[in-house]
């Protein structure tokens, strides 16, 4: 649930960035939009994953600390 709420908060900002990039419209190149979208989405998703890894480490350290105190 926490991950989902983080995603919901970031989503509007992400879409503004993706769709706000101005570009030419000479002819269809289906790959360009996909490429650019990934750069933006990937930066956010990568950051969330990094936060997730960091958060899991903190939680593991805290639970170790508390279980030691209990023991």
């Amino acid at each position, binding site marked *: 649930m926490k991950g*989902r709420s983080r*995603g*919901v908060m970031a*989503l509007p900002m*992400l*879409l503004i960035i*993706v*769709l706000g*990039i*101005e*570009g*030419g*419209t*000479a*002819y*269809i*190149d*289906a*790959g*360009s*939009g*996909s*490429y*650019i*979208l*990934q*750069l933006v*989405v*990937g*930066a956010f*998703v*990568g950051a*969330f*994953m*990094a936060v997730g890894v960091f958060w899991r480490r903190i939680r593991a350290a805290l639970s170790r600390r508390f279980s030691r105190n209990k023991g």
Partner: protein
Amino acid sequence: MPLERLGGSFRDPSGFVFRRDGDLLRQINEVHRQHWDHLASSGLYDALVGNGLMVPHQEVDLALAATSDAYKVIRPEPVPFISYPYEWSFGQLKDAARATLQIQRTAIEHGMSLRDASAYNIQWLRGKPVLIDTLSFETLRDGEPWVAYRQFCQHFLAPLALAAYRDVRLLQLSRVHLDGVPLDLARELLPRRSKLRASLLLHIHAHAKSQKRHAGEDPRASAKGRKLSTRGLQGIIASLDSAVRALDWQPPKTVWTDYYAEADHYTAEATDHKRRLVSKLVEETAPSSVWDLGGNVGAFARIATAQGIPTVCFDIDPGCVEAAYRDAVVRDGDANLLPLVMDLTNPSPRIGWENTERDSLADRGPADLALALALVHHLAIGNNVPLERVADFFADLTDKLIIEFVPKSDPKAIVLLRARDDIFPHYTADGFEAAFSKRFNIERREPIVSSERSLYLMRRRA
């Protein structure tokens, strides 16, 4: 030595598939050398084959190459039956999608990446989806997005989302759009509520809009030096996997899926006798392959698979095919069964470039033995196909045939005739035998007890 390049293998300059004296081979061209070597040296090949995600192959003599720019020639393990995404059920497409993402995840871990994510690169081997295109990998380009992202969304995510949110019959769009469902079309067809799911909002709705906005741009120039970290790339794959995982479709309780449960057309004795007859005839004919035409949820096809025979079970109803896939293949692990969606009155045609890229149903035959049980009345009465034409069609598909004749007096035939005139004076046992005798030798006729139906064993005339 007769050499034949396969119709669907021409777009990739890295190599192609061909047959030499009937032997299926794949050539890897010199231009792909570095990536090919990396596939083995990185351990990716062993990892994927070990996990049953890629078809194994053997390297063969370079003298067997088709052209002079060959670097290697391999002989992949043959897949018993080549099927296409527009013939798969929802669950099959979903499992193929997740296999593709699992392959990409494994590739990234080994410093490689899929160069394409075509659903046609996935086939069914021993009941599991496997990658058949061993040329699909390239060395991971540092900081670059996934080149196959668009293709994955078009080939897998868009049709799955349309099936889950609108109608499962929209999986057939893949037959019209060979490079997958265009995202602007998917966006148009999906309901607004699909935007409430963040993964679909991103990978389909925003993706389609981004495609339109950035059409024709040089993506690297537009990126203005921005790079995608490996963690970001893995995050996109994880996000796609969560999008696919969340999509679901449950087969409705249709007339067809209730067919066996109701059994109002058969007594238990007749059903049991029919099963025993089919089992005996399959055992006697010892076929190398079986096609069950109009096979419903695969109850009779499984008689053949239980005898170790690779069997394809075709049915027009996506619900039946889904049920057969979930129950027989996934739950019971029946590795010999391949259920597929097929309308026999409009079977898969040859399509694609020069109409040779994807084979028709008949091109992929003939089967050694076909089952046509409780089918002929649907074709002849339900679809007005003359019995001679039914016999011609079956003769194109199979060498041997176990076929059930359902007379007009049968409860199921009566239902078909209830709302129409009987314009079928030749639809009798004698008429059936006369029509089929033109294309087949009738070897046996076995009446089914407690019914007016009969089973026939036939062999195609030379």
